[in-house]
C-alpha cells in the first residue's frame, strides 16, 4: 500500500489532536488550516519529532503503531522547517552534505550535483558561511540538505512563511520544479491559500486538531460546505494548457476542458501546462450572453450549487463543461433579481485570472 496513512491522537491542556488522514504516493498534499489547528503538530508527529499515540504507515512501512515507534533518525524523510535552521558552525557545503554522509552509499540516490543544479546552489556553496546568505538562499540550502538524504517522503512546514515577499517569489519556482521532478509524496503545511492553490494537488483541511475534509485540490476547493469556499480569497483552480499568443494585444489564451480564457501575455511555449486561479469575487453572472461587455472571458455553465453566505451574499458553483467548476460570489439581491436557481444555464463573466 503506497502513500501515507496516518492517525494520531493527543490530549493537551486546551488542545486536542485527533487526526486521521491519507495522502497519495505522489504529489503535494497540503495540510491546510488556521493557526492553532494542529497542522504543524501533525507534521511533527509524522516525522516522529512529537511522540503521541497513533498509527503511521508510509509506503507500506509501519513507522509507528501500538507496539513500535521508529525514531526520527531512522525514518527516510526530508524535513524543511519554517526557519532554514542551517547549522551555523558548518559551511554551506557541509550543511548540504550533513545528511548525505549519514545514509548508506547504496541509498544515496540524490547527488550533490543534481541538487545544486535544481536549486541553483552553485554560487551559494562558494560563499562558504551560511551567515552570508539571505533568508531565501538559506531556505533553498535547507531544502537541498533535506533532499540529499534521498527521502522517500518530504515534509515541509510553512517553508515560505518566515520569508519576505521577494524571497517567496524567489523560492516558489523551485518548489514547483521539485513538485514536477520528485517522485515522492510531499506533505506541505500552510495557512496561505495562494501557496496551496499554487503547489498542492491534494488538500487535508484541519480545524481544532481534527481533519474536517480531504481530497483532490479542485474538488475540495469547490465544496461549498467547507470553510475554504467562504474565505475572502475563495476561488477555483483550473489546470490549463497554453494555446495561443496574441502579439497585437499582448494576450495569451489558455485552454481547459470546457473552455478557454484570455490572460495577460505569458512568455511560455505553446502547449505548456499552467495553473490558473479564479477568485469567486471576480466572477459575475449573467442569464443571457452579454454582447457588449469589456469582460472578454465569458464561460457558459450550469449552476450546480447555491449556498447563502452571511446575510447579504450567495456563493454559487458553476459547472463548466464536464468537470471544471468555478465559484462565484454575488449578492443575495442579484440572485433574486436574476431569479437564479439550481440547474440553470448561466454565463460566468470572469474579471480576472491569476496564472500561477
Amino acid at each position: 500500500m503506497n502513500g501515507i496513512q496516518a492517525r494520531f491522537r493527543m490530549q493537551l491542556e486546551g488542545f486536542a489532536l485527533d487526526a486521521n488522514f491519507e495522502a497519495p504516493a505522489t504529489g503535494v498534499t497540503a495540510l491546510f488550516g488556521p493557526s492553532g489547528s494542529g497542522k504543524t503538530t501533525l507534521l511533527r508527529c509524522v516525522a516522529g519529532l512529537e511522540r503521541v499515540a497513533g498509527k503511521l504507515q508510509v509506503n507500506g512501512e509501519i513507522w509507528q503503531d501500538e507496539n513500535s515507534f521508529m525514531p526520527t533518525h531512522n525514518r527516510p524523510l526530508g524535513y524543511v522547517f519554517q526557519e532554514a535552521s542551517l547549522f551555523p558552525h558548518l559551511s554551506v557545503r557541509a550543511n548540504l552534505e550533513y545528511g548525505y554522509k549519514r545514509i548508506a552509499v547504496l541509498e544515496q540516490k540524490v547527488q550533490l550535483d543534481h541538487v545544486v543544479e535544481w536549486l541553483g546552489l552553485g554560487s551559494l556553496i562558494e560563499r562558504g558561511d551560511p551567515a552570508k546568505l539571505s533568508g531565501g538562499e538559506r531556505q533553498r540550502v535547507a531544502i537541498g540538505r533535506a533532499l540529499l538524504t534521498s527521502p522517500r517522503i518530504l515534509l515541509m512546514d510553512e517553508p515560505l512563511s518566515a520569508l519576505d515577499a521577494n524571497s517567496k517569489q524567489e523560492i516558489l519556482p523551485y518548489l514547483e520544479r521539485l513538485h514536477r521532478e520528485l517522485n515522492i509524496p510531499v506533505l506541505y503545511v500552510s495557512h496561505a491559500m495562494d501557496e496551496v492553490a499554487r503547489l498542492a494537488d491534494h488538500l487535508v483541511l484541519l480545524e481544532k486538531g481534527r481533519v474536517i475534509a480531504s481530497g483532490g485540490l479542485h474538488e475540495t476547493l469547490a465544496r461549498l460546505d467547507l470553510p475554504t469556499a467562504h474565505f475572502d480569497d475563495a476561488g477555483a483552480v483550473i489546470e490549463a494548457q497554453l494555446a495561443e499568443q496574441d502579439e497585437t494585444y499582448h494576450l495569451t489564451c489558455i485552454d481547459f476542458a470546457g473552455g478557454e480564457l484570455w490572460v495577460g501575455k505569458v512568455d511560455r511555449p505553446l502547449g505548456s501546462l499552467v495553473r490558473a486561479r479564479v477568485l469567486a469575487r471576480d466572477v459575475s453572472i449573467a442569464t443571457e450572453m452579454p454582447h457588449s461587455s469589456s469582460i472578454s472571458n465569458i464561460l457558459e455553465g450550469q449552476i450546480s450549487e447555491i449556498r447563502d453566505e452571511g446575510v447579504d451574499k450567495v456563493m454559487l458553483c458553476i459547472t463548466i463543461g464536464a468537470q471544471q467548476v468555478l465559484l462565484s460570489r454575488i449578492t443575495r439581491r442579484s440572485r433574486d433579481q436574476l431569479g437564479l436557481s439550481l440547474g440553470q444555464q448561466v454565463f460566468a463573466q470572469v474579471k480576472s485570472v491569476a496564472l500561477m
Partner: protein
Amino acid sequence: MTMLDSSDLQSIWLTLKLASVTTVVLLLIATPLAWWLANSSKWYKSIASALVALPLVLPPSVLGFYLLLLLGPHGAVGALTQALHLGRLPFTFAGLVVGSVVFSLPFAVQPIQNAFEAIGKRPLEVAATLRANMWDRFMSVALPLARPGFITATILAFAHTVGEFGVVLMLGGNIDGETRVLSVAIYNHVEAMELEAAHLLAGGMVLFSFLVLLALYLVGGKWSKVAR
C-alpha cells in the same frame, strides 16, 4: 628568583598540576551533568541545580569540613575507598582533586549548561531529520555549538582551582610537595613574616588571574560577534 626556594617552586608546580587534573575531571563530569540539566524537565532537576550551585554560597571551610568527614576513615566515601584498597583521600593529592572538583563544580557546569540551553531544540531536531542518532547529534551539533560555554568553563574551573584555599587547608593540610598549594604557601610566608616571598607569589597570582580573565573576555567578545 632568589626569594623563591624549591618549596615555593614545588607549590607552583603542584598548583598547576592540581588545576589541570581538576579541570579535566570537571569537564568529564560537568558535560553530561550540564546536558541533563539543560534537557530535563523532571521535578528533581531543581534540587540537582541547587546542589550543583551550593559551593557558590558555602564558605570553603564548611565544604572542606564535610568533605573531610565524608572522605575520612569514618565517612561513607572513606570507608568505600578503604574497602577498595585505595587508601585514604584526606591529606593526599587525590583528596585535593576530589575537593577541588566539588568546589569548582558550578563554575564548570553552569557555562556549559547555559550554552546547551542557548542552542535550543531546533538544531538537534534538524540533525535527527538528517539521520543523526542521539550520540551523533550530541557530538556533531551540540558540542560544537556549545564551544563558547566549554571555553568559559575550562578557564573558570582552572582559575578557580588555582585560587582555592579553604577547602585545601581543611582537606589537604600543608604537606610540602604533596598538598601545599600556592595559596597555602603564601599563607605560610605571611605567618612567618616573609613578606617579600609572599609578595612575589601573591603578585604573580594577581597577574595570572588578570591574564586569565582578560583571555576569557577576549574570547567571549570574539564569540558574541560570531553569534551575531
